[in-house]
């Protein structure tokens, strides 16, 4: 990693100075023991993709669940779409959550529903007409290249397919924020690359701000070094030494945020933990 990496000029302008979509301010949380997260502060700007790195059990998933109010912090404040959610009643959180899309670690598909009903879950609750639901579900499944699974149940899908259906479910309502909880965890390298390609495609086509949790460096670098090429319909590498300017990194160590910056800054970091993680 001795190359000097320059931001790549993309359609979307670099996400700076804009009001953040999510902002953590001095957030701490503990569960019957030492703090899982301590004094964590960062933000996600419009159009920005933030990759949260760290080894397993460091509090990455907890941080993600705090971002849309699935968990409440013990201290600090969390702003989601400009609204303070740390102490917001659960009832008021539902409308905010429906503006976000979340991909869980194992997909978290509803076992008793077909792929169609899983992907259309939000649309069904909003009583959208069946014909429109079918059309939008097919579009979402086409995006993740799983149109043939329309009538299947999650039990008959592989791990990678479940993850892709979960991505389709998160995308269908064109969310204003995407949260990915280890989307490639436990998958083989080929399937992982397919999932990353979908995330790159979403990032470069819709420019939806996102927060992605992973402990796999190769996935993080792949996201940063590639862009989606619409004409070829696939992910292509950026010219050597260039990175996506709106894809930046965060790193956690034992509940504390120890790094917040670009790939260039990450690879040049002198922090011993970051150095060890990168090696």
């Amino acid at each position, binding site marked *: 990693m001795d190359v000097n990496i320059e931001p790549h000029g993309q359609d979307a302008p670099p996400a700076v100075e804009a009001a953040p979509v999510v902002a953590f301010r001095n957030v701490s949380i503990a569960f019957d023991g030492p703090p899982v997260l301590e004094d964590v502060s960062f933000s996600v700007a419009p159009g920005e993709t933030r990759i949260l790195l760290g080894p397993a059990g460091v509090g990455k998933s907890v941080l993600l669940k705090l971002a849309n109010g699935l968990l409440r912090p013990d201290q600090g404040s969390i702003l989601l779409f400009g609204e303070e959610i740390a102490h917001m009643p659960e009832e008021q959180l539902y409308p905010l*959550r429906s503006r976000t899309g*979340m991909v*869980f670690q194992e997909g*978290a*598909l*509803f*076992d008793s529903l077909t792929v169609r009903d899983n992907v259309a*879950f939000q649309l069904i*609750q909003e009583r959208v007409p069946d014909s429109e639901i079918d059309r939008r579900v097919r579009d979402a499944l086409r995006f993740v290249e799983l149109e043939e699974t329309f009538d299947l149940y999650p039990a008959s899908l592989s791990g990678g397919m479940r993850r892709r259906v979960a991505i389709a479910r998160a995308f269908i309502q064109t969310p204003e924020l995407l949260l990915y909880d280890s989307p490639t965890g436990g998958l083989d390298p080929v399937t992982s690359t397919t999932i990353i390609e979908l995330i790159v495609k979403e990032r470069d086509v819709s420019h939806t701000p996102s927060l992605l949790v992973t402990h796999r460096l190769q996935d993080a670098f792949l996201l940063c070094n590639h862009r989606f090429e619409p004409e070829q319909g696939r992910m292509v590498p950026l010219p050597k030494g260039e990175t996506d300017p709106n894809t930046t990194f965060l790193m956690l160590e034992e509940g504390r945020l120890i790094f917040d910056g670009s790939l260039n800054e990450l690879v040049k970091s002198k922090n011993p933990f970051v150095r060890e993680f990168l090696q």
Partner: protein
Amino acid sequence: MAIASIEKTAKNMVLTVQDYSLFAWRALTNLYRPPIYWPEFLVQSDIIGFGSLSIVMLSGISTGGVLALQSSATLAAFGATAVTGQFVSIIMIRELGPVLTGIMVAGRNSSSMASELGSMVVTEQIDAMRALGVDPIRKLVTPRIFASIAMLFFLTIVADACSILGGSLVTVFMNHQNGMQYFSMAWEHLRLPDIVQGLVKPLFYGYILSSVGCFCGMRTSGGTQGVGRSTIQAVVTSSVLILFVDFFLTQLLLTLFAGWM
């Protein structure tokens, strides 16, 4: 150390009771605020009502039969075997019908609710539902509670009818007594307060078995082992709570209907 442990346990128990009360209250009051998930209510009514029909009928017939066998032996000592029908019908309709049905349905459905919701919790499906902007209490718990209340009411009527039928079979074919006399005694001595008592109780027991089952399921932690623990907890707690509440409810209803009896 021991005192600290007792204090922690006591605090946890109080906290659990508080959490259960808030959970059960929220689930109950959801019926008065939209959206109401009627399709889920119908599906759960089918699972709880029709699904429990066979065990409720069988337990009703056998309990009625046993009551007739036991009572006729005792009543024969006083030359009063003719009141077997009255004995069976009043005991079953006022007390055993609602309680036995409640416990049978708790064994079947409280456990099923706890394991189903518990599995959803450990596989993050509940979190996924919340992340998709849908309240899992409103979507999953409230329909189960109202379906249980409604279905237990009708299942108790079925259990009462089956137990009187079971008692009649024993009376006629084993004790060789008059069937018409059995039914006429069973019917004639039945008063409105007896029926009201017997039909008010299942409303409470349906609420208890479903709210406890759902509460245990929604609090599941610790993977598949945790699902097993929640299931056991749901059946034991709901059955004990039904018996416990039955005592106070019977006392209350007897006081209320004291002038009518």
